[in-house]
């Protein structure tokens, strides 16, 4: 049995039945990493020694714990923008190349407490800014389905690691689609929870009003279990929601009868790859057979989402990244005076995409431009929110493609930022509105690349989109296919 290929719920059950130990499982995962990492480059930092030590402790707990938690002894890959005490956290930036955090982010703290084992830190676009993981300051990660292609981004390392069985589950963050788009490109499941559902404390901030932590998993059940483990109020994050966490896995009944699903007409227009559209429409028909009611809806301000996103996100980023000044930690250039120290430290520490976004955001907030850009963008953001409020009066969830295309070639879009930005066109609205959205596999294109379908839910109604995703997953076997590379 290839232990590394197991899902969380499979591995967890077998661990609890003592069919194998957490050490066996962890060793299997690291064996898989050493066999495949050369071809993929999913990880920036591996934490093998600590992981094996944690596995040993997990085995002790598995022996003594009468009611072990679902994550106990499970190897998990963590995106390198989660702060991990004692494990280098780079955010794929030269600026933080040697940064070892003094504290754990809330999510990692929760995972550690539940006995999960951190395999290492996965690659991403620098500061989570990008859609292909090519903006990493260190190297590009490759898509296990075709190693000439990108895994998507920014959580490309986590998606690739998961698809290649280099971990059992993974964590990502999603500011404009950074969990869902790579999940679609790599044929795995990725969930962006409602804004405020999971603590942001200890996540390296990109755009504070949209950043959200979420699970990336091999199937929908794992996704529900992971969300149960990481969701919840955190007094250290003022924007986290103080409301109870439902047992998401209990909603996975396969019964979706009479749920109403909206299909927004604005999402199926030009620019979409034909096999992607076809796969999503076929998936919708499958769900209809499962008993859901399908209806067309309209989200009239959809066209503005990308523009609004790139103003709000860059404005917040320009301020969030001001702390990387070379004074207290991270890269410092030695220069003749203070101003030059700032300028050189940042010039050397940040890559071109990060600089581009800092400049865009600084401009959008500048005196004389604030009203025309930032303020107007926030107003349009409110209109987009109202579109969804209106739509959800007549449906329980919305289905759209996750990305307009399947995984593109490495280097294909790096010279054209605007084209790159458009690969987030279907995912951005959920971030602007704070709504939960899940991406799951719904087929393959003519070249054998995975296609993702996205289900968007009402605020804090992750249960419904998980239920729909699960029902669909049960009627297909896309999630069981493995890449061959």
């Amino acid at each position: 049995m290839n232990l590394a290929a197991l899902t969380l719920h499979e591995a967890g059950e077998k661990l609890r039945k003592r069919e194998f130990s957490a050490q066996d499982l962890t060793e299997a995962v690291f064996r898989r990493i050493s066999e495949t990492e050369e071809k993929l480059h999913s990880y920036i930092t591996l934490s093998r020694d600590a992981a094996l030590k944690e596995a040993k402790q997990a085995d002790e707990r598995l022996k003594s714990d009468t009611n072990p938690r679902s994550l106990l002894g499970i190897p998990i890959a963590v995106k390198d923008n989660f702060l991990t005490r004692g494990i280098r956290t780079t955010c794929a930036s030269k600026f933080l190349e040697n940064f070892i955090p003094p504290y754990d982010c809330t999510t990692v703290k929760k995972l550690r407490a539940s006995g999960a084992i951190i395999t290492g830190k996965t690659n991403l676009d620098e500061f989570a800014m990008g859609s292909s993981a090519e903006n990493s300051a260190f190297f590009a990660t490759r898509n296990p389905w075709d190693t000439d292609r990108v895994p998507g981004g920014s959580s490309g390392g986590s998606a690739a690691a998961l698809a290649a069985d280099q971990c059992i589950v993974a964590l990502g963050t999603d500011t404009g689609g950074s969990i869902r788009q790579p999940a679609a490109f790599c044929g795995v499941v990725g969930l962006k929870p409602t804004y405020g559902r999971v603590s942001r404390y200890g996540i390296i901030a990109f755009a504070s009003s949209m950043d959200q932590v979420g699970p990336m998993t091999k199937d929908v059940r794992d996704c529900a279990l992971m969300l149960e483990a990481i969701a919840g109020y955190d007094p250290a994050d003022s924007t986290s929601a103080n409301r109870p966490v439902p047992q998401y896995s209990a909603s996975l009944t396969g019964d979706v009868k009479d749920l109403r699903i909206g299909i927004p007409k604005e999402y199926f227009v030009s620019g979409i790859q034909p096999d992607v559209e076809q796969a999503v429409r076929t998936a919708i028909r499958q769900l209809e057979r499962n008993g859901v009611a399908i209806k067309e809806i309209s989200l009239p301000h959809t066209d503005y989402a990308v523009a609004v996103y790139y103003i709000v996100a860059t404005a917040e980023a320009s301020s969030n990244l001001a702390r990387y000044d070379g004074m207290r930690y991270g890269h410092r250039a030695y220069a003749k005076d203070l101003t030059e120290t700032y300028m050189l430290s940042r010039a050397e520490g940040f890559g071109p995409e990060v600089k581009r976004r800092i400049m865009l955001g600084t401009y959008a907030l500048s005196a004389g431009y604030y009203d025309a850009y930032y303020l107007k963008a926030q107003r349009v953001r409110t209109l987009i929110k109202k579109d969804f409020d209106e739509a959800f009066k007549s449906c329980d969830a919305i289905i759209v493609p996750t990305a307009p295309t399947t995984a593109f070639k490495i280097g294909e879009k790096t010279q054209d930022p605007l084209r790159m930005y458009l690969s987030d066109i279907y995912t951005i609205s959920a971030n602007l509105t704070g709504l939960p959205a899940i991406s799951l596999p719904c087929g393959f294109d003519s070249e054998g690349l995975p296609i993702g379908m996205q289900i968007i839910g009402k605020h804090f109604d992750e249960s419904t989109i998980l239920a729909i995703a699960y029902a669909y997953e049960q009627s297909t076997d896309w999630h069981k296919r493995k890449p061959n590379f």
Partner: protein
Amino acid sequence: MKYETVVGLEVHAQLLTQSKIFCGCSTKFGQAPNHNTCPICTGFPGVLPVLNKKVVEFAIRAGLATHCEIARWSRLARKNYFYPDLPKGYQISQYELPICTNGYIDIAVNMVVKRIRLTRIHMEEDAGKNIHDLRSDASLVDLNRAGVPLLEIVSEPDIRSAEEAGNYLRTLRAMLQYLEICDGNMEEGSFRCDANVSVRPEGTTALGTKVELKNLNSFKAVEKGIEFEIRRQIEALSDGGRLIQETRLWDPDREETRSMRTKEFAHDYRYFPDPDLLPVAIDEEWIDEIRASLPELPGARKVRLISQYDIPSYHAELLTNRKDVADYFESTLITHRNPTAIANWITGDLFRLLKDRKLDEKLYITDWPVQPDNLAAMVALIDQGKISGKLAKTVFEAMADSGSSPQEIIAEKGLEQVSDPESIEKAIDQVLIAHRKQVADYQAGNQKIFGFLVGQIMKATQGKVNPQKANEILKRKLTEGNKISATSGRKLD
């Protein structure tokens, strides 16, 4: 042409909370550099601010006491700029929606009440400190102060002279001290002031070009700085020159202001609402609760002191200007109820001593070596005739030096006043014998000699005899002239 001065003040008041505004670090002053820090207040990656509720409560207290409108809905905003003492590269402050607006403070100008309007009061975090003079090869950064809560209190340009500015500041400081939200210590920087100064031809209403004056680290600096700036501006205009909008620094050594930066180099702070913090929503109930808990404020206390203790208005004014002084006054009265005498001692000798020893800006008077019950005991001793007013001054100085009680000092120094007639008579007799010639002169009609003789008695007894009684006895003895000479003569022979 005559010019009118127009001044608006921006005060930064450090709040007396136990912990910082966005993290749990202590606000204690005087710790080793960077001792009061954590990942949050040093701006590490990933950290998030959580607003200290006490800061909001203190802001509401200040707002209610200054007749402000309290915003039911206010926002924290980021003010973006780079400086090594600003760890996040932005300061969390308030911008378009401050917590308090449209208030006022009444000040006394030449015994007339004048109203100074307040534009706004907002909450913000303090920055750390850059230290440039400790090492020759580097500047050092101490982030203990980074994240300490501040209120910024902005007045309208209603102030018309340096003196009014000083009055306004003292009144505001007293208010914050009464509210127990700021210690008002200018020297340690817990009460700081920038002044916007401009002049305009008398009778006109348009505002002149304003200069922002910084580095005003004491009341004296505020007054002198503004005075200098007014003079400089009027001179420039009178010479036909023009002023530029700029920031100028007060140099207390050279007693002049000099340019720091002009408008062209002003920062663009790129304020925007902080997405890490929710809007601050304040309900009516909480405001009512805080309103009900407000302490007696200086104006009300002054009125009460006058009616309750029957002391003159100017004493009441001096006593209530600082909460610690008024508290000191009232605790002294608990031990010995002589309000007039005690008010005199506090506003006279105590204030002088505080000033001479430069303690007036540094210490709470309640922390000062002369404790209220010691002062009360001393005044009681005077009232009981046990020490003279003159001796009391010596006792007072000694109390300030040692912190001992007056009884201890008197015993230690043998200063107890001699009041029993027998001892006094004895002492007087000795003086009269030693000065027979002068006694004879007095009896011959030279009245001036009386004072000389009193002096000699005081000298001989080291000032310990009760002067009133000594006068009485001396007078009686001198009129019974012969008897004295006879008895004395016998003794001497």
